[in-house]
């Protein structure tokens, strides 16, 4: 401008105002995120103090040389030069008096520059000294240098803190921080009339430069003298709007979960901006249901991703999230598939083993394999009536506590199987398999029942026709075996089995589990005692347990079928009696004696099976807990 030559001769750039600069002097090294054009305009308009080179220290008695020596070297905006200038500064300050060569071209010209620092005031924030024409807070009239003022801003809105309050005064915490600047009575640099200032007033060496008279009133935010922090960062509204939009988008976004068994699988994410599934499509999928929907949905998610990709500006984050979910789902499905395969393999192996054993037992003699089975049918016939109500077994269980001696030995059949024939081994296995409900048990039974074809076919038909969809057979098997074992075994085991039951699934009604093992555990005490007395006898009754449990577990699934079966099974009633009763009659006499008094006749077997049935019936009910989810 007019006095470009004079300022140039002083080593300043052209843009100086009243011996200060339009650009910051490197006090702060952070991002300069204010609007530079606006700040420059405000400085030129004398509404904001220029960026003066601050003094590190100031004593009122200093002469010009000392002042200039304490003056912070101007720094360019790059940080590296800022560092060097600082170390230089430290050096010059420590040596204080002597000063650099280039800053002292001529004493005359130095004067005004030094003179402006007369009566320098310390900025309470950066602790540096500035010429007395400094900004003051509009509210509480506290000094603040321009360097510090431009640092103060609204808190950046974040996604968790969506409001953006205007910056508060650092001194009095009043909202809408703003400053008022009273320029000196003289002008130099930009905006001066071109005449060299020649310090008509500024030096005012003797009298203190116009010490800032404390204001009596504060300025309101909107008074024209006030410069607010928002004014030099006019983009704050846009920033806030941007963050709010992002949050709104995220809030609208929904993670779409699909329940698979007891797991929730994220299958997609809706975007707040675009409709992930338009209502029509979603409705169609909901209506569709079944296994097909998953595949369709996955395809939908895929195409949705492609859809998203094609939208410019769509959150990459959203896309990535969706992809992660898709992979998670695929992984889960794969896992399920693998589990199913393994299960099938296991079952096939079990069936094969059972078949082999069944054949062996058949060779061994008619009494080994086939006979126990009919016995079971007969007993289950007796047991069938109570199967309609689940409450009965519990009571019968209590009353028949002593009888449970035999089931207990069934589980401990491993040791017995060493002594006894293969037929027992075969029987000791099924309890596990048969409770898993899916096809394998039926196979193993039918195989083992080769001896009496009529029975095997009827069983086959029954089981196959009634077979429910077995998606969770592994889980159910675990549950059933757990609760059955709990019902059968002695005190230490029930606890264990209960643990397994609860870890397998949390949805088991605890009361059922409790019921299933509470009563037997007390009875098991007697049982054990009895067992000790008679090693062999209980071996036979257990043989009936597999079929009994199979019957009841399937009947518990489908009560209507139970009655049909009841009719069907009646015809085979007499078959079991011969070997079973013989064995019982001989060996189990003392044990059954007590029961016979009560129930009479065949009560021993019936009650035994009732215990079994009730146990498995309970477990059947507990299986019903998680299964409806399918």
């Amino acid at each position, binding site marked *: 401008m007019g006095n470009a030559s004079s300022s140039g001769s002083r080593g300043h750039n052209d843009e100086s105002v009243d011996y200060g600069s339009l650009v910051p002097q490197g006090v*702060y090294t952070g991002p300069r995120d204010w609007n530079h054009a606006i700040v420059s305009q405000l400085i030129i308009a004398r509404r904001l103090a220029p960026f003066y080179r601050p003094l590190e220290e100031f004593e009122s008695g200093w002469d010009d040389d000392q002042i200039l020596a304490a003056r912070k070297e101007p720094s360019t905006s790059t940080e590296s030069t800022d560092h060097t200038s600082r170390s230089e500064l430290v050096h010059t300050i420590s040596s204080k008096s002597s000063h650099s060569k280039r800053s002292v071209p001529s004493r005359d010209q130095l004067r005004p520059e030094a003179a402006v620092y007369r009566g320098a005031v310390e900025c309470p*924030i*950066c602790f*540096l000294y500035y010429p007395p024409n400094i900004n003051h807070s509009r509210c509480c009239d506290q000094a603040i240098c321009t360097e510090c003022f431009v640092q103060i801003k609204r808190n950046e809105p974040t996604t968790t803190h969506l409001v953006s309050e205007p910056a*508060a005064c650092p001194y009095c915490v009043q909202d809408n921080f703003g400053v008022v600047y009273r320029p000196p009575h003289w002008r130099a640099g930009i905006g001066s009339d071109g005449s060299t200032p020649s310090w008509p007033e500024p030096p005012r060496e003797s009298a203190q430069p116009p010490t800032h008279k404390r204001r009596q009133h504060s300025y309101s935010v909107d008074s024209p003298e006030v410069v607010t922090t928002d004014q030099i960062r006019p983009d704050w509204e846009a920033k806030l709007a941007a963050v709010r939009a992002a949050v709104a988008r995220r809030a609208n976004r*929904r993670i*779409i*979960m699909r329940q698979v068994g007891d797991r*929730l699988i994220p299958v997609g994410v809706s975007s707040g901006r675009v409709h992930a599934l338009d209502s029509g499509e979603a409705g169609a999928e909901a209506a569709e249901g079944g296994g097909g929907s998953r595949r369709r949905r996955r395809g939908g998610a895929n195409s949705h991703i492609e859809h998203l990709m094609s939208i410019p500006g769509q959150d990459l984050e959203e896309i990535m999230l969706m992809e992660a979910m898709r992979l998670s789902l695929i992984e889960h499905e794969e896992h399920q598939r693998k589990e199913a395969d393994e299960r099938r393999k296991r079952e096939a192996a079990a069936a094969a083993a059972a078949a082999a054993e069944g054949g062996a037992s058949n060779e061994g003699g008619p009494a080994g394999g086939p006979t126990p089975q009919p016995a079971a049918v007969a007993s289950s016939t007796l047991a069938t009536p109570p199967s309609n109500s689940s409450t009965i077994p519990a009571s019968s269980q209590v009353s028949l506590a002593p009888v449970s001696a035999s089931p207990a030995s069934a589980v401990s059949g491993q040791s017995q199987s060493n002594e006894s024939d293969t037929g027992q081994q075969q029987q000791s296995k099924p309890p596990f398999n048969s409770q898993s409900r899916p096809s394998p048990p039926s196979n193993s039974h039918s195989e083992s029942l080769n001896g009496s074809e009529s029975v095997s076919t009827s069983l086959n038909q029954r089981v196959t026709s009634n077979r429910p969809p077995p998606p969770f057979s592994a889980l159910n098997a675990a549950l059933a075996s757990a609760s059955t074992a709990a019902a059968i075994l002695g005190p230490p085991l029930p606890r264990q089995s209960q643990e397994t039951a609860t870890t397998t699934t949390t949805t088991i009604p605890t009361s059922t589990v409790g019921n299933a093992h509470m009563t037997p555990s007390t009875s098991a005490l007697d049982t054990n005692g009895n067992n000790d007395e008679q090693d062999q006898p209980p071996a036979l009754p257990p043989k009936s347990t597999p079929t009994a449990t199979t019957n009841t577990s399937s009947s518990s699934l489908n009560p209507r079928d139970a009655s049909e079966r009841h009719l069907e099974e009646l015809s085979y009633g007499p078959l079991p009696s011969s070997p079973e009763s013989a064995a019982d009659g001989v060996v189990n006499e003392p044990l059954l004696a007590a029961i016979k008094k009560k129930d009479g006749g065949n009560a021993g077997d019936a009650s035994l099976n009732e215990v079994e049935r009730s146990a498995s019936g309970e477990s059947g009910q507990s299986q019903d807990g998680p299964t409806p989810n399918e």
Partner: protein
Amino acid sequence: MASIAARRLAKELKEIQTEGCPVGINLVKADNFELWWFTIEVMGESQYKGEVYTLQFRFDGQYPISSPAVQFVVTEGRQAPIHPHVYSNGHICASILGNEWSPVLSVTAVCVTLQSMLASCKKKERPIDNDRYVRNAPDNPKKTQFHYDGKCCPALIAYSIMTDMGSAITDDTV
């Protein structure tokens, strides 16, 4: 370190060394402009009579525009005072350390404020969400967004993520 923080801290330190700390506050160490330790003791009758705690200040390059990270030291056998606004990991829920920080405040001003916070305590107890917070707390308390509503309830960014998940709708079409 940024010039402003070092320069200002140098001046604060000089003032502390020449004029001393306020009563009950003592400088333990200030070997650099990044980490300072003070001991703090409540004078007079209070819940914390006779107890001495250690305050740690961590400064970044934007001090004093950005607040220091202030917490009680809970290592080397030191413990955080039991106070409804002081977590057992030493983090402090105080507005002047968060959204009410002002660059005009100094290190000693913070010490005095926290001293009076302890002095005004009527019942020694941990914040209600102490366990939950301490479990997930970031190392730097400045990364925690405390809610200064009288009750301590820091809203961690991690929490907000969980909330996002929590609001997810389940779409079970099976």
